[in-house]
């Protein structure tokens, strides 16, 4: 079915306006697709959390970035 195929692109904000409206309207009435969308949203949110940089790595990279101008000469 068409909505099922477009669902992931829709959740990524990668479909045109018309498709977005059609999928959005379908999700409001179809429980099955609504739940599927909910699961994909939860997966996406969970994955986004795994990208949080640990404090140590962040500090090392920021420190490195500060020293780039002098290192680039070397």
């Amino acid at each position, binding site marked *: 079915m068409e909505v099922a195929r477009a669902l*992931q*692109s829709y959740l*990524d904000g*990668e479909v045109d306006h018309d498709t977005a409206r059609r999928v*959005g309207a379908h*999700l*409001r*009435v*179809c*429980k*099955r*697709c*609504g*739940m*599927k*969308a*909910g*699961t*994909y*949203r*939860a*997966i*996406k949110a*969970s*994955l*986004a*959390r*795994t*990208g949080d*940089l640990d404090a140590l*790595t962040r500090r*090392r*990279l920021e420190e*490195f*970035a500060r020293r*780039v*101008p002098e*290192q*680039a000469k070397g």
Partner: protein
Amino acid sequence: MYRVALAITGDRAEAEDVVQDSLLRAYRALDRFDGTSPRAWLLTIVRNTHINRNRRRRPMLLGDPDDINRRAPSAPGADAQVIAAVFDSRVEAALQALPADQRSVIQLVDVAALSYQQAADALGVPVGTVMSRLHRGRKRIKKSLSGLAVPGVGDEPGTRDQPGIRDQIERGDL
């Protein structure tokens, strides 16, 4: 930059080195930057840095999935925080279990928050390839979660204002 490097290399230490090399290259090449799209420009540098480093050295093995399994809680309770923690660890384990090409696209789009086009540029593949790897990979993650409580899914549009299966059974609808 780090997230993109992590997606491409699949290794935290290597990703850090790639970012450092890329920062140096970017600084040295600043005068050749045309000023139009800094993000795309940096992505290209990260990608080229990775390719150049690999040319010099054999690629390292990918991360150890046992690291994630060790952290997985063994006795899930009903509390929302536990549900979310169990969900997160299962999603991450499922991500690590994916083929590398699907995993890196997912990391670029969902972890590094790139668009399909940016992910395609970062990997040097067509957008259609990004889409099919991404959607197939997520489908596999979703499949591996079957039977697991999904945090916040009851609030989704489409499930709101609709009777649950249990309600329907109790009312004799089913």
